[in-house]
């Protein structure tokens, strides 16, 4: 994955960037190119949108960097901008498609998952391909929570929803991943066992 906190930027470069030095701003953008793009690519559905998110993120960073006061890590701040831009991109597509919000209700009742061929027992999908089969919100939540380490409260705030929405989306995402990763036969357990117990 994109490793945000392995990005090394010395204080001098950061200070120059905050003063608007173009060379330093370029160094900042180059340093965060892979982490930002990777996050964007996981949240949005195609490389073109991910590149738009990358560009929008850097535009926001260079415009706002002088206001960054060092509360928290710089990488964390850039990541927050990137996540916000990626979620904004998802909302943009939903609005264009005539849907009102990223998802529907607090209980996590999301739009139908993208159409997918039935997964037969024994089939194994690559986890990256499986991720793409999730709904926009479920994919965003599982990535932000499981990989980027955001809490449910933070995800709820980013998505203008609640922590419980984030939790229910995470559970939906994992249920779906279990289905498409083709391991039903192995651990198709508790939920069905539960239903019968």
């Amino acid at each position, binding site marked *: 994955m994109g490793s945000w906190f392995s990005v090394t930027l010395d204080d001098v470069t950061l200070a120059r960037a905050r003063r608007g030095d173009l060379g330093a701003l*370029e160094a900042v*953008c180059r340093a965060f190119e892979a982490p930002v*793009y990777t996050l964007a*690519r996981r949240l949005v559905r195609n490389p073109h949108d991910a590149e738009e998110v990358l*560009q929008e993120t850097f535009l926001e960073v*260079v415009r706002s960097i002088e206001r960054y006061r060092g509360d928290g890590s710089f990488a964390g701040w850039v990541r927050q901008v990137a996540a916000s831009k990626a979620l904004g991109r998802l909302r943009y597509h939903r609005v264009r498609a005539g849907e009102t919000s990223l998802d529907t209700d607090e209980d996590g009742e999301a739009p139908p998952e993208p159409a997918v061929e039935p997964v037969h027992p024994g089939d194994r999908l690559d986890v990256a391909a499986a991720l793409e089969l999730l709904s926009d919100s479920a994919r965003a939540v599982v990535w932000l929570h*499981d990989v980027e380490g955001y809490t449910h409260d933070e995800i709820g705030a980013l998505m203008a929803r609640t922590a419980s929405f984030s939790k229910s989306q995470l559970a939906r995402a994992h249920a779906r991943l279990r289905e498409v990763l083709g391991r039903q036969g192995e651990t198709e357990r*508790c939920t069905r066992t539960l239903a019968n117990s």
Partner: protein
Amino acid sequence: MHPDTGELLALRDGAAVREVAAHVRGCPLCAAELERLDAVRRSLAALPEERPSRDVWPAVRAAVLQSRQTRRLVRAGWVAAAAAAVFTAAVTVRGVVETIEESRAAQAATVLVAQSQQLEQALQSYQTRERVMTGWEASTVSQLEDRLETVDARLARSGERSRESLPLWQERVELLQALVDARSGDDARPTYAGL
């Protein structure tokens, strides 16, 4: 009764209630499911970094320069208006005691302000049809812009000392001319501004 996926996820993330943890310790099915949830997380985190197919920095850089140009134009417009007002006031107030030298200074400043505004417009037209610059050109432009920022700041501070502002206006025109030349690809002129 088995915990649901949400409860197992909470346990995985260290936020589960004690009863769930106790159940999983004694239930091989739930323990396996918990391990599976953790394995999915590890698999996601192990996905490789991705790289964009295009370099977005040139577009970001162009937007930054455009934004600076707009701010500078606004500031330059304010400075020019202030300079014109200062000269007018000087001529009006001093009236009969106006010297020929002061009159010439006022005229020279008026010409320089006009030249400055024309060059700003020319520069803006180059920036709207952004071309790819070499590293040397980009560096030159960056240095010229930094110097221009400095001159603008000194102009803004020069206040009513109109005579002191004259060389600043002259320098501003030279820097703008060098910027226009650099933007247009005529790389002979930046040396004119001392670069």
